[in-house]
């Protein structure tokens, strides 16, 4: 049943696009007409030594793509399709694939390895293809090194594809034995040793048991450390990759080896080639990550029964490690700051130094000060930059008490360097360091202010001046200003930035207009900073923020007028629209938060809305997330006046609700529906049929990201509260969905933290829906329509109470629902309520809660229940 496809596969790679498209079309037809035959032909093509390597490779690739997809729902379909294939076909394909591992063509072998892993990923969890691992292991011992190499590679890919629970320990032991043997120094073929080392990287997650056994662990560690000394750079790099992974996966087993690891990594950082040195630095960075997490979790209080002990490896290695890292800082590349993609040893070293500072705190300060003092004024820019970078790197971690005196001395020097240093790289790092100073040592929580009335003006002048510097320096200056503004965020009515507000805004707008603002994400940084300056502004500058509305509107208007059609410029225009809409959103939210400024804002509401609609009109299929967010803020500020925009806006609301791919857009749009409901109240009604239909579709879709579903439930509540008893016609759809989601969300047993968090998020959404529906139907003759749902809802509340894993938000919402139910159903539900556990134990617990929001909701529930049962 196989078909002849070599020619088609070759044509599909032709230079001539007509030939190529025709071939792709033919392949698609094959696939649709007879999938089993198509897959069989592809695997046969891949296995056949007579065929050209190009067609074999493409055959393997198409096969692989038929087994896997990025989107969850498509992947699920493909898995089901494979599982339902005839067993004879599958056996034949598997045989072709295994056979290909012995091919003399490295490309064919490598492609086959990947396809086998995909098949294994589908079949092993289903207990199918049980002989796979066994037959691979038997091949490892075959003589030809190229077969051995392909087999080890396949084992590595399989480990990457499946979870450790799929393979029994006996097979794990055999895989690890084969892999570690392949890594051994006496393995003659470098290709085999490299494949084995890479396979170990993927197999480490399977080695829990083996790492608990001292002898096996010693052996694995010895082999890995030996491989870091291989003559082959790729093997050394792969071995360090294993070491990095071991450092985070088996941190608690590392103590006996840490001295040896320090010795080999420090040598590698100093002497080895960059790709290896980078991994050696990464080892210490990941140890820092581990220790920061452990210390965070236990707050420094360790007891014998802490889950994971903290060995303070970094603290112990500190005096030896810091000098090594400082050395790396001098190995900068010219122009590294202009090139987004660069990652070199100086960058990695500084990053690691920053993590070390976060791990050990104050102890790092005396170790870096001599380096800074020695280098900060040297003639060679590398020394000045390295000294500054070292200082900037360690600002997060040590206490303000320790850092403030040093910063007070350094600040003037930095401000001078930022203005006067001839080197771009030094200025970049200086501006970045100033930003870090403001980020960590400036703000209402810091006792001794770094920024005082005496130096504030100078700091701002220097930063604004630097905004005319090269794009990379200007971008860092924007960042510094961002944190400078953020430090003044909770000030109330007056801010030290008030006298400079106008000048700052003016400079940032100028930056956004620079011809080179595309470079070094300068324009983005300018708008981000402008946003933060607006967010942190006070009443004193409210008038200026109102004026800014017109300025940003004009900017947006101008970009909409510009007729640019090439896809590249359209992309850029989109980005600019996003930035301007984001800025308007921040302003609307700021001005909308208090009545006097809201009225000032509202005079522009028509124009703003008109601009947003034009932004939407620029894009055909998707809606602009930023414009959507901004419209939510505008709807909130406008209240019922927003009604007049609905006829034009509604179609974009629909588009947003249908955007499954960019789920953030969908989520934002769901939030905007809530804003509109609260703004329009019963005037939302004409749009509700459409909105509810789309929301129900969203809920039923398995394409939509799950994080959007809880807000959709909350949105049901918003709609019901807005349109009251008119929600009647949606009850028959919404209630069963809420009910089944409620049943699913009751139990979290065995779930991880992330799942519990999601479940509580979901519960909150469901409960908010119930609250909104009950409150919406209150005092309506149709209240009785809700009575049939009451038993289930009370049972849901009781189950949640018994489950004992609600977070405070869910507790507050849940007890509120009890009150809403009692309030709306009154004595109709009196006896049901009295029978429920929630009305007794749960309510009593909430009444004596320390959380005032819970207590408040509970008081409400108590009153509503008393009334319901007394009548």
């Amino acid at each position, binding site marked *: 049943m196989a078909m002849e496809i070599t020619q088609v596969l070759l044509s599909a790679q032709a230079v001539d696009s007509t030939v190529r498209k025709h071939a792709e079309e033919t392949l698609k037809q094959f696939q649709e007409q007879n999938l089993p035959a198509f897959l069989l032909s592809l695997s046969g093509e891949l296995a056949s030594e007579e065929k050209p390597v190009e067609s074999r490779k493409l055959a393997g690739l198409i096969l692989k793509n038929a087994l896997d997809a990025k989107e969850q729902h498509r992947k699920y379909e493909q898995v089901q399709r494979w599982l339902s294939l005839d067993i004879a076909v599958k056996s034949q394909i598997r045989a072709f694939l295994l056979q290909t591992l012995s091919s003399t063509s490295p490309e064919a072998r490598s492609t086959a390895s990947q396809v086998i892993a995909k098949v294994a990923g589908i079949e092993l969890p289903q207990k199918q293809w049980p002989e796979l691992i066994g037959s691979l292991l038997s091949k490892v011992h075959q003589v030809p090194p190229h077969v051995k190499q392909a087999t080890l590679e396949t084992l590595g890919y399989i480990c990457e594809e499946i979870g450790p629970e799929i393979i029994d320990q006996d097979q794990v032991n055999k895989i690890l034995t084969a892999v570690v043997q392949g890594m051994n120094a006496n393995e003659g073929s470098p290709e085999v040793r490299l494949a084995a080392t890479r396979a170990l990287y993927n197999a480490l997650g399977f080695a829990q048991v083996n790492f608990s056994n001292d002898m096996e662990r010693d052996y694995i560690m010895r082999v890995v450390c030996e491989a870091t000394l291989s003559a082959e750079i790729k093997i050394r790099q792969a071995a360090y990759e294993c070491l*990095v992974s071991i450092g985070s996966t088996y941190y608690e087993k590392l103590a006996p080896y840490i001295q040896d690891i320090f010795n080999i990594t420090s040598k590698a950082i100093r002497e080895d080639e960059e790709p290896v040195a980078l991994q050696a630095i990464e080892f210490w960075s990941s140890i820092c990550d581990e220790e920061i997490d452990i210390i965070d979790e236990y707050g420094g209080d360790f007891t014998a029964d802490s889950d994971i002990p903290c060995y303070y490896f970094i603290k112990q290695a500190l005096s030896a490690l810091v000098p090594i890292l400082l050395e790396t800082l001098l190995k900068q590349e010219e122009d590294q700051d202009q090139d987004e993609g660069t990652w070199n040893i100086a960058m990695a070293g500084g990053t690691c130094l920053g993590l070390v500072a976060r791990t050990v705190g104050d102890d790092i300060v005396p170790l870096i000060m001599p380096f800074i003092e020695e280098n900060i004024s040297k003639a060679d820019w590398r020394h000045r930059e390295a000294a500054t970078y070292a200082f900037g790197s360690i600002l997060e971690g040590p206490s303000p008490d320790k850092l403030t005196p040093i910063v007070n001395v350094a600040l003037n020097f930095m401000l001078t360097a930022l203005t006067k240093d001839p080197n771009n790289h030094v200025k970049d790092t200086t501006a970045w360091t100033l930003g870090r100073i403001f980020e960590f040592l400036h703000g209402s929580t810091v006792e001794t202010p770094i920024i005082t009335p005496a130096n504030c003006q100078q700091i701002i002048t220097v930063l604004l001046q630097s905004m005319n510097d090269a794009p990379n320096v200007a971008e860092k200056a924007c960042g510094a200003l961002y*944190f400078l503004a953020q430090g003044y965020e909770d000030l109330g009515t007056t801010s030290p930035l008030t006298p400079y507000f106008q000048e700052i805004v003016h400079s940032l707008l100028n930056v956004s207009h620079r011809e080179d603002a595309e470079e070094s994400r300068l324009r983005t940084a300018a708008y981000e900073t402008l946003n933060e300056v607006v967010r942190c502004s006070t009443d004193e500058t409210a008038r200026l923020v109102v004026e800014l509305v017109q300025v940003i509107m004009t900017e947006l208007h101008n970009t909409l007028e510009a007729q640019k059609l090439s896809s590249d410029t359209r992309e850029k225009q989109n980005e600019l629209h996003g930035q301007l809409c984001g800025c308007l959103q921040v302003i609307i939210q700021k001005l909308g938060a208090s009545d006097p400024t809201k009225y000032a804002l*509202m005079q522009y509401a028509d124009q703003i809305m008109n601009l947003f609609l034009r932004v939407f009109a620029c894009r055909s299929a998707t809606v602009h997330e930023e414009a959507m967010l901004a419209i939510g803020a505008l709807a909130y500020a406008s209240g019922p006046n927003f009604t007049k925009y609905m006829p034009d806006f509604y179609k974009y609301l629909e588009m947003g609700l249908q955007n499954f791919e960019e789920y953030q857009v969908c989520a934002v749009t769901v939030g905007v529906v809530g804003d509109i409901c609260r703004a329009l109240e019963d005037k939302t009604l004409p749009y509700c049929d459409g909105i509810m239909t789309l929301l129900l579709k969203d809920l039923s879709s398995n394409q939509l990201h799950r994080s959007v579903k809880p807000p959709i439930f909350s949105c049901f*509540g918003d709609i019901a509260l807005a349109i009251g008893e008119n929600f009647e016609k949606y009850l028959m759809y919404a209630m069963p969905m809420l009910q089944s989601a409620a049943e699913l969300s009751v139990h979290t047993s065995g779930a991880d933290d992330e799942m519990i968090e999601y479940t509580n998020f979901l519960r909150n959404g469901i409960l908010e829906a119930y609250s909104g529906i009950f409150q919406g139907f209150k005092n309506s003759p149709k209240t009785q329509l809700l009575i049939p749902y009451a038993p289930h809802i009370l049972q849901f509340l009781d189950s949640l109470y018994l489950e004992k894993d609600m977070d405070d938000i869910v507790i507050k919402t849940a007890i509120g629902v009890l009150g809403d139910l009692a309030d709306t159903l009154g004595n109709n539900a009196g006896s049901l309520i009295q029978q429920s556990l929630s009305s007794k134990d749960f309510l009593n617990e909430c009444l004596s809660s320390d959380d005032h929001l819970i207590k408040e909701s509970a008081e409400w529930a108590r009153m509503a229940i008393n009334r319901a049962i007394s009548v």
Partner: protein
Amino acid sequence: MAPPDPRRPFKRPAFSDQQKRRDISLQRQAQNRRDAQHQARCLALTTMSLQNDSAATPDPQYEHSDPDFEIEPEAAVKDRDFDVREAASLRGREARRWFAKQLMLPEWMIDVPDRLNSDWYVCARPAGKRCFVVSSNGVTVSRLRNGGLLHRFPSALPNGARSNNSNRSGQSYCILDCIFHEADQTYYVIDMVCWAGMSMYECTTEFRFFWLNSKLAESGACTDPSPNHKYRFRTLVVYNCDQEGLKAAYTGPVSYLKDGLLFYNKHAHYESGNTPLVLVWKDENCSQYVLDTDSKGHIPDQQQVVLELLDDGRLATLDDPPVIFGCLDSDFIQKTGSQTGELLRFSINEGALYFKDGQLERADLNYLGKPNRARAFADSYSKVMFQYAARHSPLRIEHLLASIESSNHQETSTDADMLG
């Protein structure tokens, strides 16, 4: 399928402004949703707890007395749902009648409550006119305790001024309990009854004050006067009633003329009418008006009281149930032309209140006449007693401080001291 790139963020602050915008939006929406639900619930509570007599025929004698003043029994309320929203839009006599009954009236402190230091707040009361301030439909109106109009003005309170873009007109209204202080033309807010449509009845003092302090400043009502905001509003500094708090309220400097101290029980809800859960106390150091003055502004030699004439001739205080000070015979009633429900002024003969077991048994009263027409209420029992004590053996600040000091002892001797 290679190991992950070890590249880490370089010189990048760990934030995304876009994510920040999303997060702030979500927070705002969650808050708006909570507010909307809270409002729905509070309107329900208001309906449950407010009384309404708008169906009754307006009483032409209103200015003299208010026969409906006493709180109606719970049962009578049930079928007469009344909404603060409607009240906010009442005009003229209706409004006066309604608002006259909504203020919470503190009792006078005639003995020191238990647990003063843990369950009570204290603040310095501004001298001035006690009033309700209502903002709705783009205008702000203040009404005195008797329901009479004080000012009609634009303010920065929600919906307190007209504006081209005002929104939520039917919904957004506020009711504040204030004292208007003439000297600096400022409304000092002593309590919050409704805010932006949300009723604060049934909320604890603790919560009302928290809400008041956060919302009032946000609204812009505390700013200096402007064309759209004719009078400044201010909150009072409220202390926990411990030694330091009491001393601070008693002696601390304030921007207004002090007229005694107000004590609020932290757990009390806002109730209309007399309540023992808010207390007022004063002495010469913190008030110019310790002893009541007569209509000419002089302190009379003998204490005077205003009592209400009940239909059986008894003379009652404002309290619910009323305390009876005596009884008029029908001849006397006829001779003075007094009518049921009318207020009458008496003086108390020196040392002529007789007590038995701590209860008033009898009072020697002399009829003086009818009080000022603007007077809407009889005196409360606690007021009479406070005035009586102030003339004989006042409750002094030392007593209050001592009570806090010995708060563990259930019994204090203040009663005996004061009445002795």
